[in-house]
């Protein structure tokens, strides 16, 4: 079993910074942290979004779809960043694997 921690920092146009940390086992996401200085309402929706990524394949092209679905389910509103920015930050983290 290969356990990895992957990180990325993604600067959003306009200035906010998304910092992603992924705990990964055999290319499957076990834990996701989407941290940063952005705004999301209601705030606890972030935990739902993070949980929704657990079990997803790191190389999945569906990560953006998973995030979009979780945002919709939690009725979250994003300010200072977008679903696409989260997806870009996730992609960057997944590519940090050497």
């Amino acid at each position, binding site marked *: 079993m290969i356990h990895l921690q992957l990180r990325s920092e993604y600067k959003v146009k306009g200035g906010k910074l998304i910092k992603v940390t992924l705990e990964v086992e055999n290319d499957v996401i076990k834990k996701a942290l989407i941290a940063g200085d952005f*705004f999301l309402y209601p705030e606890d929706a972030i935990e739902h979004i993070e949980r929704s990524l657990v079990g997803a394949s790191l190389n999945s092209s569906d990560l953006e779809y998973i995030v979009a679905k979780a945002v919709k389910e939690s009725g979250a509103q994003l300010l200072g960043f977008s679903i696409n920015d989260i997806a870009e930050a996730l992609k960057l983290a997944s590519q940090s694997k050497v």
Partner: protein
Amino acid sequence: MLAWRFLDTGEGDAYWNMGLDEAILMLRSEDIVPATLRVYTWNPSAVSIGYFQSLEQEVDLDACKALGVDVVRRITGGGAVYHERDGELTYSLIVSEEELRAKRFFDDIQGSYKVICEALVLGLRKLGVNAEFKPVNDIIVNGRKISGNAQTRRRGVILQHGTILLRTDIPTMFKVLKVSKEKVSDKAIKAVEDRVTTIYREVSSNITLGDIKDALRGGFSEYFNVDIRASTPTQAELDLALEYRKRFASWSWIAKR
């Protein structure tokens, strides 16, 4: 016309300060207290991090401990802030979306930041500061940031709080915040000085906290066309703030992310 309240709660520690903001928010959402503009300062100096930030990524806990700087996680998003004792004034506005919209129309969350920040801008202009709102959540003077602001909402009520810098202590800020991987060089300090400004720099160090408080109250009152009357927190607010203070001071909350 229903009056709003003005609360000058003076200095408090980080956990109490955040506890009272949340207590007013909760009691406003139950319609127990009126819309409120509060001003306060921080003693001891403290770092506050945004709800979504990672404690270990943003804060040097050893440096905070050595310098006697408290660390608190906010219920609002946004970035990490070093609140220097007497180096800034913090305000909070607690108002229902409905009553805010009745005063100044806005469409969405970004619009609500804009109207509240424009009231702040009007207040700062009364002091002679050539301030303007810069989306998402900043107030700038000639391109330099003087105020950062952050919102949360509970049951249709907005809490927006933010800081107005009087002066900066950039060396300490660099010690307590993990601002960059670069060393704390003169160049890095210069870079912050180019991006940030203060009341002292823009106007004069003769400006007092009292002047800024008066200017903010005047700015909000004029911009929202509402009487803002000096008052004191209710017993219910003080009790609830003490209860919330415990959560803000707990490690499980501070290190939540």
